[in-house]
């Protein structure tokens, strides 16, 4: 059965700290791994990773995929209170419908 596991489930840090969120997967016919940020409403797209070892960056956020280890990390540097959210990792299989299998999420809290 396909599985996506995120760790830690919950993380509380101070503003300015750097955090690393982890995602590991066991998925047949892997196509891509995606990261989303979910605040009170809908998840918003952060990154999509398909190639191993290539870092994607957007401001203070970056992510990298390791296909050998079947894992990915999401880094956030110089955290701000606005980074507080649930971060979701999802994996897409090579199938026609582009369905995503989600992990349980990491709840990140940034204290001022």
């Amino acid at each position, binding site marked *: 059965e396909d599985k996506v596991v995120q760790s830690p489930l919950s993380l509380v840090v101070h503003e300015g700290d750097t955090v690393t969120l982890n995602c590991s997967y066991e998925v047949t016919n892997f196509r891509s791994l995606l990261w989303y940020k979910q605040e009170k409403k809908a998840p*918003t797209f952060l990154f999509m990773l398909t190639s191993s070892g290539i870092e994607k960056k957007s401001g203070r956020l970056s992510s990298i995929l390791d296909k050998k280890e079947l894992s990915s990390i999401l880094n956030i540097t110089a955290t701000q209170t606005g980074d507080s959210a649930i971060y979701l990792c999802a994996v*897409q299989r090579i199938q026609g*419908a*582009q*369905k*995503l299998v989600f992990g349980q999420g990491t709840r990140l809290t940034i204290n001022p």
Partner: protein
Amino acid sequence: EADIYQTPRYLVIGTGKKITLECSQTMGHDKMYWYQQDPGMELHLIHYSYGVNSTEKGDLSSESTVSRIRTEHFPLTLESARPSHTSQYLCASSESGNYGYTFGSGTRLTVV
């Protein structure tokens, strides 16, 4: 502005009632999805659609049904709501060849 809309945002309803959760997107995406998310838990796919007149069951069994008569509209119906249906329901869409999803704001359903 192209977007994906879900109504209602919140719904409290009695056991046995029939309900329809609405989802519409203005982006012309051919693929649409319904996910169910319990508090603190991962998103589970319950229905998806490749396009008009195409609907499939997702990975999580659900008593709900869906229809796709128009590209932009993908409503979800529960014929007889039960307390076990209490959850958040998220609608999403994606374009063929583009693997990122766009999510709606969700409907938080409570069945009493």
